[in-house]
């Protein structure tokens, strides 16, 4: 079943706080689950490891994915999501500091739904989060979750 859950995959605690603050500032009240590295994110999605026994029928409405992560990189996480039938259709928005062309191409070719560059200017970041939430959480109709 669909939930109002947002999975934020981010290792930088400052960025976690700032993202949460930005979400809050835009009045996005959805539950935010934070995974601090790629492994954790995948464990959450597959209900293994630290998240063993989690009801995996509850899938996040949106995954906000940083690219530069310890252990498993964001790009690998993205590929894993797209490589698994259960998570294949999850909307994944890459939210990262990098504006390297290589990263953009890699992400889009690995099947990310959107690529958002985190600016230094918090004001603009808030604006970006607003637009992002409005689109993905309000306007976008998610693909139905197939049981399993």
């Amino acid at each position, binding site marked *: 079943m669909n939930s109002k859950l947002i999975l934020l995959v981010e290792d*930088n605690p*400052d*960025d976690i706080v*700032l993202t949460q*603050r930005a979400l809050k500032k835009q009045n996005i009240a959805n539950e935010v689950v934070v995974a601090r590295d790629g492994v954790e994110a995948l464990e959450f999605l597959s209900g293994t490891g630290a998240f063993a026994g989690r009801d995996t029928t509850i899938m996040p409405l949106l995954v906000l994915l940083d*690219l*530069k992560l310890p252990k498993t990189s964001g790009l690998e996480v993205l590929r894993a999501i797209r490589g698994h039938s259960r998570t294949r259709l999850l909307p994944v928005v890459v939210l*990262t*500091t*990098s*504006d*390297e*062309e*290589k*990263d953009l191409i890699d992400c889009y070719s690995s099947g990310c739904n959107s690529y958002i560059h*985190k*600016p*230094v*200017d*918090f*004001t603009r*970041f808030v604006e970006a989060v607003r637009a992002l939430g409005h689109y993905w959480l309000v306007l976008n109709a998610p693909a139905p979750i197939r049981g399993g």
Partner: protein
Amino acid sequence: MNLSIGGRISAGLGVALLILLVIGTVSYQSMAELVESAWRLTATHEALDRLSELCSQLERATDIEAYYPIIQKLDRQLGELRSLAAQDPARQPEIEALARLVASEAAAVQEWARQPKAEKAAGTIRMLSSRGQRELTEEIREAISGAKRRQPERAQRWRADAVGRVRHTVLVIASGISLSFLLMVVLGLFVIRGISKSVGKLVAATEQIAGGRLEGSIPVTTKDELGRLAASLGGMAQRLEQAQGALQDQVQTLQSILDNLRNGVVVADANGETLLVNPAALQLLGVTATDGRLEKGWERNTLYWPDGTTPYPADRLPLAAALRGEAVDWTEVFVRPPDLPQGRWLSVAARPLTNADGSLRGGVVVLNDVTAHRRAEAALRDSERLLKAILETLPVGVWVADPEGNITMANPASHEIWGGLKHIGTDQYEAYRAWWEKTHERMQAQRWPLARAVATGEGALAEPVEIEAFDGTRKTVAQSAVPLRDPNRHLIGFVAVSQDISQAQQREKQIRELVEELRQRALDLEAVNKELEAFSWSVSHDLRAPLRSIEGFSRALLEDHAAQLRDEAQDDLRRVVAGALRMGQLIDDLLRLSRVTRSEIHPVTVDLSALAQSIAAELSKSQPEREVEFVIAPGLVVNADAQLLRIVMENLLGNAWKFTSKQATAKIEVGRALWQGQAMFFVRDNGAGFDMAYRDQLFRAFQRLHPTTEFEGTGIGLATVQRVIHRHGGRVAADGAVGQGATFYFTLP
């Protein structure tokens, strides 16, 4: 008449002579008869006188002794008379009667003579005194007298006869002479007439022949001498005509040969006057002939020594020498005709011409153009020199061997390589100590490329061989050998080439080492590049994150805790935010510069005018309150990387936008113009401008000519522009003055 003139004249003269002969004979006979009859008349008269004398003596004879001889004389006289009268029959009886008388007288005397002596004396008297005797004597006397008396009568008759005869003879002579004369006149007229007619025709024909008209026959057809003369003259003219025709043909042939001969021919008489000069001679000498004659002494002004400048020695001029009786064999001279400033070389021969008696008649000069030959020889010499120079300067050793493989020649480089030279045959090649470079096996004499080429006729190319030169040094050479063949594929020898590749090998080794070093460096560089990329990526990710924290939390403080913060603290926090933002901008610009350096260029056709328009529109939209006039020339098209070009134009137009912000009426132009002799694109503004003294600093990263407080900026934009343009192979330039705006030029190939 078919008789010859000579015949006719002879016949005429013969007839005349015959007539004269007859006349003469007749006259002579007539006169002779006359004379003889006159003589006989006289003789008869004398004989009669002597008879009568004898008779007188007989009468006076007293003794018989005297008588007898008289009788005998009488008888003899009678015989004479008889023979005289033999022609006259009328006198025959008279003489016969006298003869009988004398005979009887004589018989009586003979009778007396036979008597004995005594009786004779007696008998004499008696006989003399006998009457018979007396009578007989008287009769004899009578007979003689009778004959004497008839003598005048006879003389009378003879006279009458002689007159008749003389008259007759004169008549015969006169008529004969007249006849002869007539005959001669007739004959003469006839002959003269015939001759003069023919001679007239002959003269006309001869004049015609003399005038050179040999054709046509002579109309004298008689068979006499003139006819034959005419015939032979005609034949002669015909033969002359034939001979003349043949001669003319020959002359024409000779003329044609001389005209078409490529050799020049000049013939002169003993005085040096030109008798003949053919067109080739005029052309070769570059002289002109007046009336077929060259100027006398033409040689002196025309011929030069083969060096082309020294006049030909006067005592050796060919024609002059020939006219002195000397032969000149082919010798070279130089001429410079007016139409050929570079001149030409001629080979000249000259010979004296002599008459049959050996006296000098003139001289002939023959000229041959040998310029091409001489040039070819010079070219050959040059090419030989060149070949020699090449051989001597070639840095490779060259040996030349005869068809048997005996080394006959070697160039200096070969000496250098081997430290000497050995002229040896194939079987002695062992003297050249060498080893195969690959196997280090000793080179056998018959295995040398040259020896193999001699044995098989096949060439070998650049075989690496290690050698020990005669001075003991070791070297590596590339050895080749090929057979040499003439154009007919006939073997003329061999050439062996040895290139000292010791240094080359050394160099090759060095190059290999260098390549290896370079490869290593490239690997290092690649690693560095990768590191740089990783660094760049890391910067992109990590450097901005803390900034974001600084900026974000500072702002959070300002937003959430403004009440607790004093104005001073708030101002400090705002400075922190501004600093973080500036650093973010710096990082962005640096990353972009780095990207410009690293990214590959994909040139496409870009509409620069449209690009400028779209950026101008964005700028206007970003600050709609500003009034800026954009003047963008249409139709500017370049071949460049679209993304990088956009960065260039964003920077240039962004700068222009920025630096005109303090102008009341800002104007930004984009176009193309000549700058320092080169057509360049430009972006011009009428903004703050810059001091040209610092223009070199404009394009350096982090260099700014304006304080940040006046105009914001990181000082990386123009550095990025320059890098993009340079990576496209173009150039950038700036022009401006403080307060008078700036113009940035760039080219794109």
